[in-house]
């Protein structure tokens, strides 16, 4: 039976009955006796001094327990922190008393810097009473000039946001050899220049942020229930850098999470604030955000202004790539805000290609908007869209098929490990095979007749390719440290076999919908032959477990999973020693198979894992010098990242009159190495594509010039429905990696970057005879209509 449950088996997810039956508990479901409710007053000003806050009338409203402003919190908590300090360059951040890069304060004190910034917290008996009191709080603002994008913020004379950040410049970071790249561009036959604007997007997981905090005055213990992707990181930052309390006085528990997509991988203001409020009012307090709150106070993502130059020859060979990127980090840095636009975009812009002379430069600025952070496909989506657009434009310029240009420049299978010139070492791959499969599946050779047929129906048909290489498996800790992360990214696991034969796995990962419990159970089933129903997976509670890094960056299976695999291997080694001892034979005469230690000479003779765990529990007769108990701990720090890859292809039809675009077919060929659960991997790959659709066709954050968010709810921020997407036709190739013992690469967010180029290249293909070279995302019907009219919007 267990053979059907090991790695490679597409078993159903163990998590799903609880989720599908509606019995699963989320942060907002957790209630404590005597709990009070907190509602936050957001700034309606993008940039203003706070001259005064009058809470008198609001405090007298029914049910209001207390109202807190920034002034009430003086000395009780420090600003939040940014744990990504760009390495090797001068950088500037808001200040923090400990000298680390600072971020926003839980509540604004003298000044607000974006619409949505937290200004006051109402604690009341009920949520409705707290909401009712909000309008009665009177804030006296003195407006300041507003700047909402990076390039404007970096101009001379722009309004300054922070005293310690001259010219709003966080940092300028460069990778590659600029002089050599410029020289290669200058001497090239063909040079393509294109600005690619990638607007901000909002993650919008189904579940908003939510936090419940309790303080026990007798023990001075704090407990936090919150939906963070990094529970241990929250504990560490809150205790040591924000509240200044002993680390072991704070417990962080994460219930089920209703999606994160990267938006919950931070320390936000609610977590430390609720802990302080719980202590101040002497009662547990709960805060649950609204959908508008998600748009205004949870990070946004993407948001890059890229100036790309690609140079090459008429033979289709790319010679050089130069990119200058402007990125608005928001009014304050998010916990890891600088990471994605620097490393994830910057080192990834060469995509799947051998580019002899690459150069990347990013200018990070602060401006009067919500903070910026990574999202599914973080940084790489922006990089892959840019390179895939430039490659297509290059192909059209030299009159060569875009697929042929890709083929001529892709890293060949015998060139691995391959250094891309901007700091990545691609571990393994066969890029051309994935490309060929995708082309074959979409019927690439047969487009001319289809275009003619579509035109007869008033439609313009186009085909587009998105080839990608995506860094995953975050990551090697020392390397992350060199990039600027003030932290570590190894995996951790404990595997404990109880005397009953059941197994407990403790993981440092943090599942928020990906099916980790199932996949991790399969690792144990594979290694130890234990039925998955006898395996429990503990996670997301800092109490009594080793530090865990959480889930992000397509790291879980290949890093945290590897830690479990290794720990289970250690358990197996010990079990073999004990099993041989129980048989009274030498170790080399036994083997571990199908749930127990067997005599090689007579495999029917078996000491089951339960027999062995029991013997180690009694400890009456163990090999000399062996400790009792059957468990192992593993910390796995990979040697390097892993690099999944693939090619997607899209077929679009554009209405010639309205500009409306329909994606009629979507094909993906992905390679994530060896997989744990193919069903779960397929789900992740499908989800990545669905997540990629929104930004291409409809999603975008829009601010007006005054810094007001025009897309602050779901009436104005369009997330595509499944009915607007075709069936995704997916297949995989399998190229293992040597970066972990399972040969697995990341899968959670690696193919999202392919979606935008596949669809946008298809749209540009459909419009190419009109002279359209480029269209920025989102390709809304009006934008397409305008380019068809020869206008640019």
């Amino acid at each position: 039976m267990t053979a059907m449950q090991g790695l490679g088996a597409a078993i159903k997810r163990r998590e799903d009955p609880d989720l599908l039956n509606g019995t699963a508990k989320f942060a907002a479901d957790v209630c404590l006796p005597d709990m009070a409710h907190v509602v936050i007053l957001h700034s309606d000003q993008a940039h203003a001094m706070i001259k005064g806050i009058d809470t008198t009338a609001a405090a007298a409203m029914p049910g209001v327990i207390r109202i807190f402003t920034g002034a009430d919190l003086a000395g009780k908590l420090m600003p939040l922190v940014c744990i990504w300090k760009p390495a090797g360059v001068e950088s500037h951040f808001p200040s923090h008393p400990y000298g680390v890069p600072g971020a926003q304060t839980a509540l604004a004190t003298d000044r607000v810097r974006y619409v949505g910034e937290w200004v006051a917290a109402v604690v009341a008996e009920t949520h409705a009473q707290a909401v009712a009191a909000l309008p009665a709080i009177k804030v006296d603002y003195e407006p300041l000039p507003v700047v909402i994008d990076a390039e404007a913020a970096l101009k001379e004379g722009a309004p300054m946001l922070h005293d310690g950040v001259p010219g709003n410049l966080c940092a300028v970071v460069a990778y590659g050899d600029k002089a050599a790249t410029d020289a290669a561009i200058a001497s090239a036959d063909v040079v393509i220049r294109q600005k690619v604007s990638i607007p901000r997007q909002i993650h919008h997981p189904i579940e908003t942020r939510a936090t419940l905090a309790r303080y026990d005055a007798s023990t001075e213990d704090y407990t936090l229930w919150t939906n963070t992707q990094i529970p241990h990181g929250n504990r560490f930052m809150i205790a040591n850098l924000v509240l200044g309390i002993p680390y072991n006085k704070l417990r962080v528990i994460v219930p089920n999470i209703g999606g994160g997509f990267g938006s919950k991988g931070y320390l936000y203001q609610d977590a430390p604030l609720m802990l302080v409020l719980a202590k101040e009012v002497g009662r547990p307090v709960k805060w649950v955000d609204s959908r508008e709150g998600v748009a205004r106070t949870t990070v946004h993502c993407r948001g890059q202004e890229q100036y790309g130059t690609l140079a090459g020859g008429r033979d289709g060979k790319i010679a050089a790539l130069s990119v200058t990127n402007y990125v608005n980090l928001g009014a304050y840095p998010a916990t890891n805000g600088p990471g994605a636009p620097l490393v994830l975009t910057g080192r990834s812009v060469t995509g799947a290609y051998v580019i002899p002379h690459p150069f990347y430069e990013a200018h990070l600025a602060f401006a009067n908007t919500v903070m910026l952070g990574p999202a599914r496909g973080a940084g790489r989506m922006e990089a892959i869209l840019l390179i895939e657009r430039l490659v297509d434009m290059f192909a059209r310029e030299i009159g060569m098929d875009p697929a042929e240009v890709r083929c001529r420049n892709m890293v060949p299978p015998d060139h691995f490990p391959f250094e891309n010139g901007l700091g990545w070492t691609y571990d393994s791959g066969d890029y051309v095979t994935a490309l060929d499969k995708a082309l074959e599946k979409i019927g690439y050779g047969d487009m001319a007749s289809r275009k003619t047929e579509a035109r007869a129906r008033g439609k313009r048909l186009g085909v587009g390719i998105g080839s990608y290489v995506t860094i995953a498996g975050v990551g090697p800790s020392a390397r992350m440290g060199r990039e600027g992360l003030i932290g570590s990214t190894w995996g951790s696991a404990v595997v404990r076999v109880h005397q009953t034969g059941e197994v407990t796995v403790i993981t440092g990962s943090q599942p928020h919908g990906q099916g980790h419990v199932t996949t991790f159970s399969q690792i144990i089933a594979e290694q130890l032959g234990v039925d998955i129903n006898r395996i429990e997976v503990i996670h997301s509670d800092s109490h009594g477990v080793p530090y865990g890094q959480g889930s992000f960056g397509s790291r879980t299976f290949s890093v945290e999973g590897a830690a479990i695999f290794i720990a289970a291997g250690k358990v197996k080694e010990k079990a073999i020693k004990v099993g041989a001892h129980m048989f009274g034979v030498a170790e080399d005469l036994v083997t571990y198979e199908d749930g127990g230690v067997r005599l090689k000479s007579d495999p029917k003779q078996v000491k089951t894992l339960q027999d062995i765990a029991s013997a180690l529990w009694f400890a009456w007769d163990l090999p000399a010098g062996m400790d009792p108990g059957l468990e192992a701990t593993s910390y796995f720090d990979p040697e390097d990242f892993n690099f999944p890859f693939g090619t997607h292809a899209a077929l679009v039809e554009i209405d010639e009159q309205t500009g409306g675009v329909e994606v009629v077919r979507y094909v993906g060929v992905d390679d994530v190495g060896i997989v744990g659960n193919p069903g779960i991997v397929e789900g992740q790959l499908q989800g990545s594509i669905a997540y990629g659709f929104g930004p291409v066709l409809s999603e975008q954050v829009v601010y007006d010039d005054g810094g007001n968010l025009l897309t602050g709810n779901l009436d104005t921020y369009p997330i595509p429905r499944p009915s607007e997407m075709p069936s995704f036709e997916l297949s995989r190739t399998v190229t293992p990696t040597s970066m972990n013992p399972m040969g697995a690469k990341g899968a959670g967010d690696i193919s999202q970057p392919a979606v935008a180029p596949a669809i946008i290249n298809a749209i540009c293909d459909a419009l190419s005879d009109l002279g359209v070279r480029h269209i920025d995302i989102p390709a809304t019907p009006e934008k397409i209509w305008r380019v068809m009219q020869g206008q640019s919007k």
Partner: protein
Amino acid sequence: MSQSAYAAPAKLDEIVGLLAGNPGAHLLAGGQNLLLEPRRSQITGSLLVDLRNVPGLAAIQASAGGGVRIGAMTTIGAIADNAAIRDVSPVLAETAAIVGDAQVRNRATLGGALVAAEPGSDLAPVLLVLGVVLEITGPKGARSLDASAFFTGPGKTALAPAEVITGITIPSTVTGAAYERMKDPATLYAVCGVAACVVLSQQGAIARCQIAATGSTAYPMRLPAIEKALTGAKPDAAAVSAAAGAITDDGGFRGNFYASKEYRVHLTRVLTERALKRAVARATT
């Protein structure tokens, strides 16, 4: 939502009485608009009056003269699925089938959709071109109202305080009608939608036509200029195209960051042409 009082009487006159006696009260039908509003803090009333217990309000039945009467509490989904409606007015059933999404269609009601008077309502322009008559009951008794007189502004209607729509009647079979739209990807309302209804003379000219727009205009409204231009004309492609192309922004159009006014005017022309062509083809056959 703060705690609201709730009443669900079984008699229409009690409903009207409660509405008349509680000026802040709100009428609850399918709740697809009303239940969004408390979240947006726009509801000030303290009494919800639910129509669900009034018998017969969801009935669909044949009316005198070969038409069909549809009760106000009929869900949009039921309209889409009803054979009698499909016979009498295919365009209404077709349009109902593309309103919102399945969950919305299963809850939202015809009456609620009318009263909400959403600027991008899909059903509104269709009802405007079909010669629909609304049945209304209020403190002063029952009255009928031509649908064309119902929408008076964005979110505004000709209903007096405490009046309730109880049903609509499509007077006779109308096959020469069509609806075309492009939807807003966020709200699923129409960015632009155009309904056209055409009756041809025995000589094959356009004897009568009604055209109404939604989404692109500030509220669902008829387009009298193009109706007038086409009346008496031959319904050939050139005439239809010329008439649709003559639509201009007379001040009634709207725009936002997703779709500008200029683009919506363009869409109105394109979709008018398409709706008219389909309507004419259906009128002929």
